[in-house]
């Protein structure tokens, strides 16, 4: 079963067409990596599927519900219920600075899902423990390192039990020595068969963890296939020249 299907998606900012007729789907349990140069439209694609951007045309289904059909959006109630099935991890975390790590994870459970504060905190603590941050429940975001903040934000997304988790360059704002801890978390989620779409510049990681890779350039999907093939043995010249900049990843 496909958790996400995108058909003929297009998106323009004014006269600038950033996504041109893109179609793909993500089956349950798959890890899909989206790679490509800056400005290729991959972040916009992610923001469209998570309803942070209004698309110009096309159809998107998420978790069995139709978000937009031929450019026409579903009613607000449907959109909101789709929202609850989708998790998004941002490049720059976007934690709520006035809430402790625990409350960052609990707040939506309480306010949106209607869980009791106790139940929510319990779930938050177990997620923090899973992220290796059991002792940071009371810390505020400014007291945490970038890697710790990003792990809290992953826990925050997981707390709503999403059907699919999207990552928008989750390690790009981190020091190189901190990216490892985030990739480790994503790897462990992959081993639990969490459906994930990861926009990333970490080619080695994409090759190891992703089941499938989409290479985007100029608003279109240039190449798509099993991670080992697209990254290890790309068919298209454009893919090859992009990958060559990542130190011979295209071997």
């Amino acid at each position, binding site marked *: 079963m496909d958790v996400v299907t995108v058909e003929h998606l297009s998106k323009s900012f004014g006269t600038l067409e950033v996504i041109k007729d893109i179609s793909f789907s993500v089956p349950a349990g798959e890890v899909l990596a989206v790679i490509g140069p800056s400005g290729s439209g991959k972040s916009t694609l992610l923001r469209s599927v998570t309803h942070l951007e209004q698309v110009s045309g096309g159809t998107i289904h998420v978790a069995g519900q139709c978000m937009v059909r031929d450019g026409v959006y579903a009613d607000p109630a449907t959109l909101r219920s789709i929202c609850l099935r989708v*998790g998004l991890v941002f490049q720059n975390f*976007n934690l709520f600075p006035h809430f402790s790590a625990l409350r960052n994870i609990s707040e939506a459970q309480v306010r949106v899902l209607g869980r009791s504060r106790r139940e929510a905190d319990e779930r938050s603590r177990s997620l923090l423990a899973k992220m290796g941050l059991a002792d940071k429940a009371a810390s505020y975001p400014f007291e945490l390192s970038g890697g710790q903040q990003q792990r809290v934000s992953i826990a925050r997304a997981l707390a709503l039990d999403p059907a699919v988790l999207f990552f928008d360059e989750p390690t790009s704002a981190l020091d190189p020595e901190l990216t490892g801890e985030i990739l480790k978390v994503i790897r462990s989620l992959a081993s639990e068969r969490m459906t994930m779409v990861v926009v990333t510049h970490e080619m080695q990681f994409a090759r190891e963890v992703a089941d499938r890779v989409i290479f985007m350039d100029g608003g279109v999907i240039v190449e798509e296939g099993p991670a080992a093939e697209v990254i290890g043995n790309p068919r298209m010249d454009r893919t090859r020249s992009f990958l060559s900049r990542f130190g011979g990843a295209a071997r």
Partner: protein
Amino acid sequence: MLKAIEAMLGGTLVSLAVFFLTLVAALPLALPLALARMSRSRVLSGAVNGYLLVMRGTPLILQLIFVYFAPYYLFGLSYDRFTAVILAFALNYAAYFAEIYRGGIEAVPRGQWEAAKVLGFTRAQTFFRIVLPQVIKRILPPMGNEVITLVKDTALAQTIGVAELFRAAQNASARQFSTAPIFVAGVFYFVMNWAVSAAFARAERRLAYYR
């Protein structure tokens, strides 16, 4: 002198009433003004922008006179002077507060709204639970400035005959042929603003637990 001080304490109560009632009215009134100013509707934001320009671009003393006398000259209606003072002060201060609120709201990163949206918070929940607390922290210093100015502006209430602290001091000064009561009034204002500063410093400390 004792009598003068007694009169000035009475005037201080009037000044304090003007001060607190203005805050009670202007602090909430400024929020819809700020939101309307940021509205995507050109008509609404344009209208509010015009209002803000007029209220901030003309003297408060003139607005006081207008608010009190305009209904009389236009419709023959006269009403309570004190009410007119509160009305004029609230309309004027709400304009300044609105611009401070707007600055504070616009300073909250867009990512905060987006993170809340993806988590399923409604727009109202996002505003009141996520954005507003951060806005309050950011706007405390400029709000402190405005509130201190308000304490001193209460002296303008005498323009339309409301006997507040400064008027009481001037009366005492005339009776005693001495400027001393005026300077005593100055001490009164200073003490009030010392309390205002202390209250704001305390609020800033209380919100210092996060960055």
